[in-house]
């Protein structure tokens, strides 16, 4: 299945910006079951410096600097991505979660995704919430599926309830949030039990196939979670929609949490007040 993505961000500034620096995570990365056919990023006004790179996690980055005075910045990322249909990861047999927790900390490749990170502090409240899903002897992925279901049931999707800056304990308290919050919450739950988990940033198809409901978080950037299961590797789980992503989730980048993979950030000189407008379209061609 081939998805064509168009992700447009428009910043409007109250006064002239004289100089600005930006860092984008807007080019889809190579991921299991995902192949990037084509991608490009168009920026207006034209940057003076444009430097593509790769970050610590292997994601594609783009640094750019603009020194043409401007009051409006448009960044448009486009990509064509082929997703190979896979069976839902939740159907695979997996080891006892306790075994995974016992061994992960010593693994250099997994340990990073066990540690607290800027948006995912390790607090008792997350561990207490996670416990009922991970009873002794439960297979890892059964626990993950149960946790995803409980987050989906217990928490209300509410774009007005939170912002990037809302800390996790507020989300826990009010039981409301958006995909980012639910991803961070699930990461905190899994990591507090010693289970490696990473934050995945990406997109959802905008139009559901006939007969299927439209998913929460389409029309914008989406976020979900990757968990590590020995023998299977990293498997995605989307607590916002309570499902194991197959061919409707396009991966942009992954990291410890949102702060590692923010799609677009910047520091401007001048500019005054600013407003931002984001639009995402994902068109799907089933024949691809």
């Amino acid at each position, binding site marked *: 299945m081939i998805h064509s993505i168009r992700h447009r961000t428009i910043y409007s500034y109250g006064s002239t910006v*004289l*100089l600005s*620096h*930006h*860092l984008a995570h807007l080019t889809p990365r190579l991921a299991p079951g995902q192949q990037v056919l084509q991608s490009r990023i168009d920026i207006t006004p034209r940057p*003076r*410096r444009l*430097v593509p*790179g*790769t*970050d*610590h*996690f292997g994601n594609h980055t783009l*640094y750019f*600097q603009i*020194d043409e*005075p401007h009051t409006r910045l448009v960044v448009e990322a486009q990509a064509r991505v082929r997703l190979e249909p896979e069976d839902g990861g939740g159907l695979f047999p997996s080891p006892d979660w306790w075994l995974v927790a016992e061994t992960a*900390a*010593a*693994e*250099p490749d*997994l*340990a*990073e995704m*066990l*540690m*607290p990170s800027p948006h995912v502090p*390790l*607090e*008792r409240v997350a*561990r207490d919430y996670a416990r009922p899903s991970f009873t002794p002897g439960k297979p890892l992925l059964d626990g993950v599926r149960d946790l995803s279901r409980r987050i989906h049931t217990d928490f209300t999707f509410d774009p007005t309830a939170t912002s990037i800056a809302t800390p996790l304990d507020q989300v826990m308290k009010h039981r409301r949030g958006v995909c980012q919050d639910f991803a961070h919450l699930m990461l905190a739950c899994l990591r*507090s039990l010693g289970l490696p988990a990473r934050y995945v940033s990406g997109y959802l198809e905008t139009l559901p196939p006939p007969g299927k409901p439209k998913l929460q978080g389409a029309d914008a950037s989406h976020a979900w979670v990757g968990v590590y299961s020995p023998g299977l590797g990293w498997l995605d789980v989307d607590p916002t929609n309570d499902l194991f992503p197959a061919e409707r989730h396009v991966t942009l980048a992954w990291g410890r949490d949102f702060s*590692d993979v923010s799609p677009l*950030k*910047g*520091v401007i*000189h*001048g500019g005054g007040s600013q407003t931002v407008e984001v639009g995402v379209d994902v068109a799907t061609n089933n024949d691809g």
Partner: protein
Amino acid sequence: MPFRLAQTAAAPVVPWQPLWRPGTTGWDEVGSPEPRAPWRQLDGAQELGDLASLEHCHDEARRLIRDLGVSYTVYGKGEDQRPWAFDPLPLMLDAEEWADLEAGLVQRARLMEAILGDLYGDQRLLRERVVPPGLLFANPWFQRTATGIHPPGGRWLHLYAVDLVRGPDGQWLALADRTQAPSGMGYALANRFVSVRAAPQTVAQVRPAAILGWFERLGRLAADLTQVDEPTVAVLSPGPYNETYFEHAFLARQLGFVLARGQDLLVRDETLFLDTLGGLRRIHVLLRRVDDDFCDPLELRGDSQLGVAGLAQAARAGRVVLANPIGSGVVEALALHPYLPRLARMLLGEDLSLPTVDTVWGPDALCARLTDAPESVLFKPAFANPGIGAMLPERLSDEARERLAEELRLKPHSLVAQSRVPHSVVPVLTPSGIEARPIQLRCFLLRDGEGWWTMPGGLVRFGVRGDDLPISMQAGGGAKDAWLVGSGAPPAVARPPAPVVIRRSTEDLPSRVADNLFWTGRYVERADNALRIARAALARLSEADRQRERAPLLTALARSGMPLSSATPLASLAQVMTTRHPGTFGASLSALGRVTFDLSDRLSPDLGRLLSTLGQDADEPVRGTAALGDRIDRWLESMAAIQGLMGENLVRGIGWRFLEVGRRLERAMVASDSVATLVAPGQPLDAGLTATLEVCDSQLTYRWRYPAGLTLPAVIDLVVLDDSNPRSILYQLEAIERQLAALPGAERDGRPSPARRLLASRTAALMALAVETSTQQTAVETLSAVWRDLSQISDRLTERYFRPGAGAAA
């Protein structure tokens, strides 16, 4: 020679020695009864001999410290800068013993650098399981940004500092490593300045190893790191609120580096520049005193106001050298200590020669220490600043210890247990005589093309108490110089001084400084004006027959911030003085405090003192009109002194011109606003004119010229149009033009700048004014037009000179 030995034993070698009571289980640095070899060098020392001369030397040092302005900012109390607590009796170090220590320090520097290269490189240490992954991934100082940055030549450290303690057996032990932005070397240099001047004859006799050569090497480091003939080095300082701001300014001054804050710098084309009024000036090497995560708000902490956006990218592109590179803080973690011996063997193929204070990390080992031997360890954060957050488990209650154990189960990586080592003690002169105080020694290393160089000596810090708790300048305590003596010591005499270069122009003035000077001028005049209006109002409150004259002044006061309550006018006037409402004296004064604090390294200490004492009594209650009047008079006198110092004590450079423009602009603006209010239609004219002359300080001249009485045209002529009256508005406009004409950017394409053109047209309009036919209505119109134009001129100056990158854009 047994005879001589017997003789020295009979009389103390050092006169204060009989007073010396080490009284500790720790190592006695002096040695008793017979002093150790380096201390015997003080035999016959003039200034450091008996108690009286020590006390005299102490006073002398205090005076020198005040003159040098050595200070240390204490957190949590706003801007409390306390003088550097310095004890002039140095720590005496033996050169032979030093050679061993130095070898150990250099080896440790090489080891730290090798570890950094591995952790940000191919991570062999993780893959081969030499260190647990948590050491890196639980470490908040592991900067993922830095994994793609390869410092030129693999040089991960240019500067390095180690805190040392001496154990009870006399062995030096490393306590902590400072790798990201080592502090203290400036204080070590200041200590040497002071100790050499406080005890010149002793220095001549003892000849301690010179440390200046090390600093000269530091001054040349930039040329070595870049292939540029005359590279520019900037010290990136967090600013005057930082605890060690003194040394940032001091080092910059001593070594000829630019002292900059984040907002003075910008990155363009992956290149770092200083943003000056004259344009962008490239910075080749950045000696940063800002922690790793605050260096770049784009790639590191987004809330940082201290860094420079794009700095990481400039470093990645190899277009600026950071001393030290972003990410170097990762090896400051105490959690690294247990692994050092193994890492030395693996990475250097050597045995670690300088031991580290025994440290354990990991939940099991920690819990064991917690239950088995809580009295023998200090718990410290495994990754935070090594100087903070130490806990004594023996002092914890059972309940608190249980909570700690629980915390460790959730975050097993967060703490280490460091063995407590009784610190060695030295004599310190206190009000109650000579006392034994525990010390730490901070040693400094730098690396240039020839290799690693250790400063011969270092910064000695002593604690307030006689125990082994972490020594911190924040908690009190003080500092000493360290003198390296004996055979084999590096040369005592510094190389001949460099030839003197005469410099006049001090400018590459950063835009921020120009901005602050401009606003200093403005706030001084604003505060002065508020006081004058208040004084005039007060006179009319207290004299019953002047009631009728009150109205215009009350309106003016209301405009400048706060209306007076008619029921309790005196109390509310007193409040006008202290309120923070914009435009009032209180608000102007606190804004003035803010901008001048930011300029503290550029204003004279006298000026700083005047500014800091002015208004200190503002919050005290006033009893009666007379007391309030006295207070306002006293403040006005201080204001006059401040204006005088600004006029007479600043070099007529670009900076002074901005200050002057700010003063003149504000004086003209507040005068036009106040006069327009006082003579407005509807106000009793006589009362308004009297108040105008008083607020504009022009009564005397008026009475001389016009003994017949008050008329509106005559008053307007004197306070607005008469350019021989230094308080008139036209006088201010002409003064502003003189300064603007001398600034860079005074002309654009051969024409006067927009601000100057606007100024010229308003000046011409005033000169052409037919003042004889003025009415209250036309006067208000004239004055409002002046105010409007000046406010626009202020905006244009801001646009042209004070905005980031403005100098470059012009």
